[in-house]
Each structure stands twice: as C-alpha cells, then as structure tokens.
C-alpha cells in the first residue's frame, strides 16, 4: 500500500503501466492462450476421483441377465413403431403395465416459431409415456430417471428395449430406495422439455402439455440412453447441457468407474483416451478432446436429452452406444449390467450429487481441469481490458501538460462527451434489440416478398440486420451535433472496454467456454482500436473478429476437430442452419446464447466499430 500512498512512486507505477501498456497486453494475451493450451497437457491436469462417499467404495454386484430378451423387446417395439407410424403408445402402456410399473402418459403440442428444416418439423404433437417403478417402503420423495427417446426411423429401438428390460429386472429387486421413472419421450428434446415442465409444473417456453398424473418426488439424477445397434464397440458420454451447464463430475466418474470395472470401452466427445501424453500426437489428441468440449459448451445447446434436466438441478448425462469397426464388441447384457450398476449406486445416494465439481473441462475421461485451473486463462485475457481501461483513464485525467487551466479544459471537453457516449450506446443497443426481435416478427413479410422459405427468411433477416448495423457510425455521427472530440472517443472507449470486461466476466462465470471464445476474439479488437489506426485494414480485422465471423470459424473448426472437414460451400450452409438452430434453441428450450450475442455482445462490438469511424 505504501507504493500507492506515496505520490511519487504512484506516479512512477502508473507511468510504467501506461508506457508499457501495449507490451504487457500482448504478453497477457499470449500467456492466456498458452495457459489455455497447457490445460490439456496431462501432467498439468488432475486425475478424476470419486468424491461422493456413498458411491465410492460400496460394493455392487451386477446381475442383469436379460440382454437378449431386451433386444427382442426392442425389435417388437420397432415393429409396433412401424405399424403405428410413430410412437406406439398403447403397446408401450401395456408392456410397461405388464412389467409391474405404474404407467402414465402425457400429451403435448408445440408450434415452432418457424419450421425446423434440420428435423423437418413445425407443428409438433406427441405423447410421452412413462412408468414409475415404486421402490418398496419408500415414501415417494426421491426418484431417478432413465429415458430413451423414441426417434423416427430405425434409431434407438435397442435403447427402448433395454430400458424395458431394465424396468422388468429392477421390478423384482427389493433393494431400491428411490422410485425409478422409465420415460420414453417422443420428438426428443421437445418431448423432454414438455415432460420436465409438466413434472415441475412450470411453463417457460409456451408449450402446451397435459398435466402429469403420477410423480415420484424430487428427481435426484437422470440418464438418457441412445442405442441403435445390438452390439456396440464403445459407449460415449455426453455431458454438455443447456447454456453450457454440466452435471456434477461425480456422474462422469461413476460412468468411467463402471466402464473400467465391466471392461467396456468408453469415450468422451467420441475420443478414446490415450496413454502417450508425452508425444505430440497424444497431446494434440487431448487438445482436440478438450476443444470439442469447449466448442460444445460454448454453443449453449443441449447435446443430448439429458441437457434439459440440468436447469432443474438434476444431474444428468447421455450415454450413447457407438458401433464402429473395431473387433471387440459389447453386447446388450453388458450395457444393461453397466446401467444396473450405475443405478444401484445412484440409488445408494443419501444426498444429491454435490461433492465434486460442477465447473470443469475434460481433456480425457480420466482427467479433468477444474475451475481453479482454467479461470486464470480467462483472467489473463480480461486483465488486458482492465489495463487498457486504466491507460485510458490516466490519459483522460492527466491534464495536457502545457496548458495552465487544464481543469477547465477537461470540463469543456468532456461535457459534450456525455452525449457522444450515450448516443452510440443507445443506438447500438437498439440495433441489438432489433437483431433479437425482428427476424421472427418479419418472417411472414419476408416470405411474401422474397422467394425464400420461413427458415431462410429468419436467418437471412438476422444476417441482414447484423450487416446493416455496420453502417451505424455514419448515422450516429449525423445525429451528433458537434464534431467528435479526442476526449469523446476516449470516454466512449473507456465505457466500451469496461462494459466488455463486465460482460465477458459474467459470461465466463456461467459458461466459461463461451466467455473464453468471445474474449479470444473481442479482446484484441477492444485493445487496439482507435480512430487513428488505418481505417480499411482495421475495419477488415474488426469484421473478421466480429461475433458472427467467430461463429463461422467455429463451425469449420468444430468439424475439423471431429475429423470431418467440410468444404466452404457445406460450411456456409451449415453456418446458416446453425444460426437457425441457435434461434430455435432459444425459443424452444430457453437457451441464452442467442439473446446474449444479439442484445449484449453485438452492441458492444458495434461500439468499437463506432470508435474506429470516429470523426
């Protein structure tokens, strides 16, 4: 503190910070990126371990015998599905009743804001069927959920079969302490959303559903099962849920522990774990795995049916059966035993899963990076913004050295500054609100006047508004009466930089990946942009680093990571569909990424665009 209370030393420190501002910023940026890349280096990460005592050392013996019969049930289900041309509700009700469950159905309907071209649906009507296995001598206060989506075509029949097989097996067991709800949901996430909203009697997204008749108390954990072949080579664990929420790490640990015990190959992000961490390829493998997780988390969409549970503080994950061309196959009995083991351990839980981490990244299934390790990477990027803000503040406060009446000068200069700051702030936010509201509102008009479908209309309107925002500085300057002053843009930039710092900080706390990716692109923009840099080049850089372009790179990068490179043409089409999916996710499930980008991040970027074209 003595450093700051001594005016001479303080002046020296501030002088140092302002003089070396640019080099320090560059160093911080590099250090942030390097730190982030170092996270997936195995010696820097922690091995996963089971934190929850109740699931740790308890012995569970898996005895599920009826894999073949489960597959037969799956085939029967598939036959009935073909016959009814959708969800065979009656057959499911009858089958579940025969297995001794309390069976209930729930009808739901939802009209999407615009047609979903990926899944070809617009007016969705469906039925969820669920059976509750009542635990003996339990007072209906706690429940576990096992779900399998009833997908169109030949998908997922085996999952439904296995679910029914497990229901039958568990029905005959005496050790259950929590009710188990076996749910078969139609129209994947929409059905899931309807069921969860019905179960918790909330309505966040304007869906129509019939109220549920039977409940099992508060749900402690849930697993979603996706299985489309009789044998699998490996099981993939999907964790990323709505808005980048993750289930408690113990759920992943549990899955990993049972895969190890039973001897099933397990993957995360579809990537097997490798032992050669010291080789370059081993390291890049880990980087790929973690980057995939970062990308998926940043997208803010639920990557499986489990994703919607997380909003209700229910720990959930999706288990996907993968059948590739490997030699050693795992049959349905083994998968059944794995699930049985997991449910028995979850059944042993005394409290909700809370012991382990909720914020983590996984470079492999056996290693994780906790929030304490990855936050510095973001912190180093965020510090750049604060340094720039300090620099600007010092420039604003220090009077120009030669004038005698510097104080009055500053007053004269900064008084027009208030308006010159407020005007761009308001206008850019109005643009943001337009970007959020208009695409859905104007789709009908757009369809009438242009030869496009509704979905294309929405996406193209969004892109049009986004691009139109780039013309703003011109209009803003016209609105302002006087000339923009040197002090004016400094004040505006100070506000914009602090705004961005707060925005990114909050985002990173909720969804680290999204915050980090945005910081990676927006922080350099915020750091270098002034009205005095070469206009054309800077404008080009600014556009390249804008949120929309970040999304475009992310699409390509994501496919590169998945080792499925795509051409530019495909990438562009995919980009358009990703935008439409993002908007749909917001309206259907309440994903916050689209409003965040439209209403907050994009206006913030526009402020920097404004500064570049300051007159």
């Amino acid at each position: 503190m003595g450093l700051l209370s001594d005016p001479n030393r303080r002046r020296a420190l501030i002088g140092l910070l302002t003089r070396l501002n640019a080099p320090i910023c560059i160093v911080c940026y590099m250090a942030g990126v390097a730190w982030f890349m170092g996270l997936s280096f195995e010696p820097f990460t922690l091995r996963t371990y089971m934190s929850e005592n109740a699931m740790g050392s308890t012995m569970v013996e898996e005895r599920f015998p009826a894999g073949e019969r489960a597959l037969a049930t799956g085939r029967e289900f598939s036959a009935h599905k073909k016959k009814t041309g959708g969800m065979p509700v009656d057959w499911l009700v009858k089958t579940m009743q025969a297995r001794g469950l309390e069976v209930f159905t729930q009808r739901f309907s939802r009209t999407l804001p615009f047609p979903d071209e990926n899944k070809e649906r617009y007016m969705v009507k469906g039925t969820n069927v669920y059976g509750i296995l009542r635990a003996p001598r339990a007072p209906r206060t706690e429940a576990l959920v096992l779900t399998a989506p009833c997908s169109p075509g030949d998908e997922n029949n085996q999952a439904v079969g296995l679910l029914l097989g497990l229901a039958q097996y568990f029905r005959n067991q005496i050790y259950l302490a929590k009710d188990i709800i076996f749910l078969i949901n139609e129209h994947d996430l929409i059905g899931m959303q309807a069921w969860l909203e019905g179960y918790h009697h909330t309505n966040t997204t304007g869906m129509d559903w019939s109220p549920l008749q039977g409940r099992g108390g508060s749900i402690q954990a849930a697993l979603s099962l996706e299985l489309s072949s009789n044998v699998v080579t490996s099981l993939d664990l999907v964790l990323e849920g709505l808005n980048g929420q993750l289930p408690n790490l113990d759920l992943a640990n549990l899955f990993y522990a049972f895969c190890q015990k039973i001897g099933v190959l397990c993957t995360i992000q579809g990537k097997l774990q490798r032992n050669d961490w010291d080789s370059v390829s081993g390291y890049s493998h880990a980087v790929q795995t973690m980057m995939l997780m970062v990308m998926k988390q940043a997208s803010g969409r639920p990557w499986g049916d489990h994703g919607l549970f997380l909003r209700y503080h229910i720990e959930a994950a999706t288990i996907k059966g993968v059948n590739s061309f490997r030699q050693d196959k795992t049959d349905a009995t083994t998968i059944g035993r794995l699930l049985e083991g997991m449910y028995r351990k979850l059944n042993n839980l005394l409290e909700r899963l809370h012991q382990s981490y909720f914020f983590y990244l996984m470079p492999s299934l056996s290693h994780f990076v906790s929030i304490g390790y990855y936050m510095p990477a973001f912190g180093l990027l965020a510090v750049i913004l604060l340094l720039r803000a300090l620099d600007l503040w010092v420039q604003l406060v220090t009077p120009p050295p030669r004038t005698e009446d510097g104080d009055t000068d500053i007053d004269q200069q900064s008084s027009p500054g208030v308006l010159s700051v407020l005007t761009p702030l308001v206008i850019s936010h109005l643009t943001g609100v337009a970007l959020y509201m208009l695409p859905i509102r104007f789709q009908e008009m757009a369809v009438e006047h242009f030869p496009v479908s509704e979905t294309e209309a929405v996406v193209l309107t969004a892109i049009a508004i986004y691009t139109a925002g780039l013309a703003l500085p011109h209009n803003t300057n016209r609105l302002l009466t006087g000339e923009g002053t040197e002090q004016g843009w400094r004040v505006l930039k100070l506000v914009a930089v602090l705004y961005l710092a707060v925005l990114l900080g909050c985002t990173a706390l909720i969804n680290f990946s999204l915050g980090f990716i945005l910081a990676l692109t927006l922080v350099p923009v915020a750091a270098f942009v002034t009205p005095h840099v070469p206009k054309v080049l800077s404008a080009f850089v600014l556009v390249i680093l804008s949120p929309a372009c970040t999304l475009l790179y992310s699409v390509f990068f994501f496919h590169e990571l998945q080792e499925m490179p795509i051409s530019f043409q495909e990438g562009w089409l995919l980009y358009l569909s990703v935008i439409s999916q993002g908007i749909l996710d917001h309206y259907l499930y309440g994903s916050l990424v689209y409003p965040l980008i439209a209403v907050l991040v994009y206006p913030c970027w526009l402020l920097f665009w404004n500064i570049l074209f300051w007159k």
Partner: protein
Amino acid sequence: MAARRCLSSVLLFILCTFSVFTITRCQETTLAGDNGAAAGDSSPADTEAAEQTVEQTRWEATEVTEAIPDEAAADKQDSAAPETVAPSFTPPPKDDFQEELVIRPLHSGDIYASFQFRTLWQTDFTRENKVSHYGLFPKSLGQIISKFSVRELHISFTQGYWRTMQWGQPFQPSPPGAELWVWFQDSVTDVDGTWKELANVLSGIFCASLNFIDSTNTVQPSASFKPLGIANVTDHQFLRYATLPREIVCTENLTPWKKLLPCGTKAGLAVLLKSEKLFHSSFYSQAVHIRPVCEDWQCKTTSWELRQTLNVVFDLHTSGQGKREWSLFKMFSRTLTEACPLASTSKIYIDVTDNPQGEQFELSPFTALLTQAVVLGDRRTYSVYDLTQQITFGSVRSLNLLIRWKSSEGDMLRPLLHAERYVAGYGLQTGEIHTLMYNNHPYRSFPVLLLDSVPWYLRLYIHTLTVTSKGKDNKPSYIHYQPSKDRVRPHLLEMLVQLPPNSVTEVTVEFERALLKWTEYTPDPNHGFYVGSSVISALVPSIVAMDTNRTWESPLFSSFFPCKEESSYFVRIYTEPLLVNLPTPDFSMPYNVICLTCTVVAVGYGSLYNLLTRSFQIEEPSPGLAKRLANIIRKMRGVPPL
C-alpha cells in the same frame, strides 16, 4: 350418549356422527343373537343374503367392527363391546384381549395383511389415576396414561407410502414416517411441557426419534383430529399433533411394539410377526391407539382400549418368482398352530368379495364360515377362520392359508377420493406447493377437510393461496390459518373445501425458501428438507349407495330408497411428504477458501479504493516549540509569522 352430545357441537362432524350413529342403530336392529352362538351353527341373520350363496357356506351373524375406520369405530364401540365382550350376561372379565388378521388380496396381485390386537382394560380412569395392578394391559403404557393425564394417544410408524390407486383404501391410514397425536385431559395445565415430556418417553419406549418433536413441528388442528373415544373435550388446546416424515421404521421399532402384546410373539397370530419378512414388503405400518371406550350400551362403565395394528403389503414381484400365489408361510415364513390362550377371540378374515365363485383366486383350506361387513362404504364378504376352534387347524395341526390367483393383473383402481402433492418450480428461491384432490364420484360432491402443516423454513405466501376445481375458483367455506414464527412454530392451514363431482381440485400456495443459519443445517443438507404429509379428512359417499344397478339381489321392499346407513363413510388420507431443497452453502474446503479469500479481498479492496480516491498533498513538517512560541508572539505583535 355423551359422545354424541359433545361431537354435535363441532361444525363439521355433526354429519359424521349422525351417519355413524345411524349405522350403529341399523346394525342393532338387524342383528339377532349374539356372537358366541353364531360361531357354531347359527341361524343366519341376513337370511336374504345367505340364500344367494352356495349351500355349504354359512354366514356368521356378526359384523366386522374393526374394519371400520377409526372415527366410525369410536362410536360403534358402544354397541360392539357388549356383544363381543359380555356374552350371555355373565359378569365381564376385567381385561379382555382379541386378535385378528385380515387378509385382502389386491387387484395388482399384491396382498394386504392387517393385524389387529385389542386389549380392553376395565378401569374407571376418571376417578383414580394411580393404578398399581396390571393384567393384560402393558404397564409401560398404563403408567404413561396416568402420569401424563392422557385422554387419547395415537401413534403410528410407517415405512412406505400407501398406494391408493393400486390398493384402495387402507383400514388404518397413516402417513410415511412417524405420526403422533394426543388429546390430554382438561386437568393438564402445561400442555406443551407435558407433550414434550410425553414425546421423549414414547421415544424411549418405541426406540424412535420422537424426541425430535418440538414446537417447530407441533400443531393444534382445529377440526381435523377429533377424539375417537368417549370424550367431553372439543377444545383443541388439549390436542397436539406432530409428524416426523423422515423417521425410518425398522426392526428396532417392531420389537418394543411386539412386547406390548399379552402373548408376546410366543403364541397366537403374533408368531407371524417376523421382521425379516415384514420388512421385505412394499408397505409397512405399525400403530398404537389408546382411547377410552364405553363398556356397555348406556356407558355406565368405561374402560381403556389399547389397539395395536400392523398393516403390511407384500409385493408380488419382489417375493414371488412370477408365480401368483400367496400362503401364510410365504408371507411370514411361519404357519399358525394355535391361538393366543389369553385371547377371547382369535380369527383370520379373508376378503372374498371379488371372488364369490372362486373365479379370481382359489382359497385353501376351505372354510365354511362367511361374514359380511360394510367396510369403507363397501359391502365386503369375508371367509372366517376361527383359531379358537381346533378344527381350523385340521389334521396337520397347523394352518397355512393358500391363495392361488387364477386371473391376470387388474387395472388401476379409481378410488372415490385420492390426493397427491408435489413441489412445482425450479431454482432455490421460490416454489409452489400443489395439492391435488380427486373426486371420482360420478354425480355427488362432498366436503373434505385439508390440513397442511408446513415448516417455518418454507415461508408460505398465503395471499397466493388458490383453490380451483374444474378451472373455476372454489372458495373454501372454512379456513383456519396460523402463520409460522421463525424457529418457533410451523404454518398451519386447515380448509374445508367442497369437491365437485368427477373433478380435480387443486390447491396451490407459493413459498419462499429461507436461508438457514449455518448451524441449523442437518448433517446432510443436500438431501433436502422434509415437509410432512397433508391430511385430508372426508365424508365420502358410499360405494354401496352409488351402486344403483346391484348385482346383489335383495328383496324389492328393501331396495327402493337408498339405504341411509351406508350413504357416506369417513376416510382420512395422507398425501406424500415433500422433499424440498433449501439454498445450501457448500460446506467444503473450497467454500471455506472462497470465504476467506473474499474476506481478504474485501479488506484489501477497501484500502486500495481509499488510496485511489484520496488526493495526497505534501504537508509541511510541524515547526518546533520555540518557533511556535515565537509565532504566537509575532501574531500578537501583528507581525507576519516566521
């Protein structure tokens, strides 16, 4: 009839008592002959009914009184006692013990067994409190009655939730966990103190955590719980009611309960009570009810009744390997060889109502004796096995009842009244309690009394209370609400609601979750906090009265007006308890680290902010003493200072 006079002052229960009394009167008129004669070769009383059955079965000319739920049984006791206890006008024994087992095969293939043990103790409890001689009545309970001036005591321990939709109504309803309600005599001055002490003593007797009963979970219901025995108190300040939904019931609670029986587990029906089988079931409930009853019709003498009940439901799937059959041995891993020698009656009843011709299940060994009773508004037929008769045990000298199902599983039932409850909403700030009450009667509405006791840490917003039926607002005709006091007492909400026919009535109330002090959290805070079951008491229109198209053929003269005696019956149902998560701090090491770091940062930030916002000036060092003196002198002289 003192009971009638007193009860009639109560708003709701006028109707209840009236109907129940009419039942009693009806029975008295129809019954001819006494119980003892009927067991042998009786002349059937319900002759019109007996004519319809197969030849070899005979009718027992008595009604099963125990099967009526508590409220009704209380009044019925007046008439039932002289018939059963004092046969042929001999002077009654001072103590009396009866035991009974009722077995009801359920639609779902499960089986419901209900044990009833009743000890009557003839003593004039109003005059002398100190009793030194105990016969069949357990001394531990007798001392409690006299020490704490208890008028009525009802305690139940239940593990599991009664599934009304699959099993119908139970004989004795009880909520999951422990429930205790006590009426004290009006001589008690410090009711709260006595209640606390009583709970602690009972906690010791039953090896249960009843000592957790304190003012934060005790309420005084104004209308829902009325005395079941003869009573002249209606002032609910002598009533205390508490539930512990978290209580786990196991063997340690069963053993002291069994020790209260006169024969222990040595003889009689109690030999079947083996814990390894009883706790291998879907539902288990044990209860003790103590109340004063009349000994005779005019209530000249009174006695204490100790009724011990044990209800258990065995699950078809977990115990049978796919075979749909039940036997005493399979249920309890014991067979019966004798009645309790101290028991005046010892019987097994098997509900064969749905099985008049043996089409649903097959019962062996065959018994010729049948009886009928109106249980929960439904006329039921029972096969009776009298254990006091040697012939019941047959040549093998052991009774192993066998029920073999023939048909497959039935569908879900539609009980006339059932209820469910859940917490709506997400997040840890607010929530909403929804209570749904279903009236499945096709054309009659009936009133129900809803009792909700919610712990203080859920802060109810009572202005958000809504009651809706069929989409319309349903205004309760009576509301008794006592707001909670933090850490002192819970919310109490009692409402009298009319349920329209064939409808769902939804009661919702919003609440806020309180943030507890850090020492108030349980050791497992992330498990959640329990909210006890709501209690719904109702007079439900009877099934018999509803049944206009009777399969039961009765004489024309008897069937024109619906019989008033059976028009409605009392039911008490409990909803499921709730498990609510409160905002819980992370009681772990990282949490402590964060707290510590935040403190350090806060302190650091304060000084840093101070430094940044303060402007600094270089101050002249203060002059020495001589200089200051000189300056004062110079000031006086009017010369500028040095």
